[in-house]
């Protein structure tokens, strides 16, 4: 039982260290998922039609506006314009304070890669997408 207490203490101490790095030292890319990783995960979730699970990639404000049905509709309209998404990648864009932009790079069967910029905001230390305007009109 002493070992369990030691593990709990280790986890708490490590979480404390991570909190100091993220909130105290303002880490935005090392101990948290960087903007491009968040964007890539979001677009991959949309590609796989996991609209309900996609909510976790949005800021609190955006979650109130972006429903799973809206995401399904936007994805369907996007694919009707550019073709079925077959490959997903992301590149980093700019970062200023708690705001950033990353670019989703979508590979389809019909045309060259389509680049979709998405805005992000840092919320509770983690990057979250602020809206889907970029996906609605690439």
């Amino acid at each position: 039982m002493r070992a369990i207490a030691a593990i709990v203490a280790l986890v708490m101490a490590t979480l404390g260290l991570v909190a100091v790095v993220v909130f105290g030292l303002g880490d935005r890319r090392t101990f948290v998922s960087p903007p491009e990783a968040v964007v890539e995960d979001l677009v991959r979730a949309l590609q796989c039609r996991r609209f309900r699970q996609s909510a976790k990639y949005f800021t609190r404000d955006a979650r109130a506006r972006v429903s799973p049905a809206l995401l399904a509709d936007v994805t369907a309209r996007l694919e009707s314009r550019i073709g079925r998404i077959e490959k997903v990648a992301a590149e980093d864009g700019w970062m200023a304070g708690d705001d950033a932009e990353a670019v989703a790079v979508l590979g389809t069967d019909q045309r060259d890669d389509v680049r979709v910029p998405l805005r992000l905001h840092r919320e509770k230390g983690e990057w979250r997408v602020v809206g889907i305007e970029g996906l609605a009109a690439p």
Partner: protein
Amino acid sequence: MELHRIAIRVIFVYLVLLSLIRLSGKRTVSEGTAFSFVLALILGDMIDDALWAEVAMAQFVAAAGTLATVHLLVSWGASHSDWIDRLVSGTPALILADGRSRRDGLRGEQMSDKALDFEIRQEGVDKARWAEVSAAHVEASGHVSLLKAPWARPPQRRDKDAVLRKAGR
């Protein structure tokens, strides 16, 4: 993705895992029980996500810490209860007794006669000398262990003493 950030994450994940495994006991990743295999499998997947920043480091620490704690609780349960130990580690299966293969044991381990032949041969006993084996088990770790018949064991000092006693010296 900058290389130095990957290096920082690798070092951090390595140190966290090393500490967790050291604290959860030497047998945590000991060779091949179903128990440690499951732990290694889950940790392996977690590390991948943490190294490529697909999850925040705090999430990795919480997940790995929870896993280590659960593992420790199950180990503690197994060390205090035979029933839990049997449930998580399984029991040795008898596959050869007194030089003869045991059908029920082999079936239970999905082992063919050929596989049995191979396993026993690996222990240095070919089929012609199976009579020397009093019992062979597939242990919980998946390894095969052999018990030789008393007459087939290499002579010990006590055997010499017994012979001498018999001879009246």
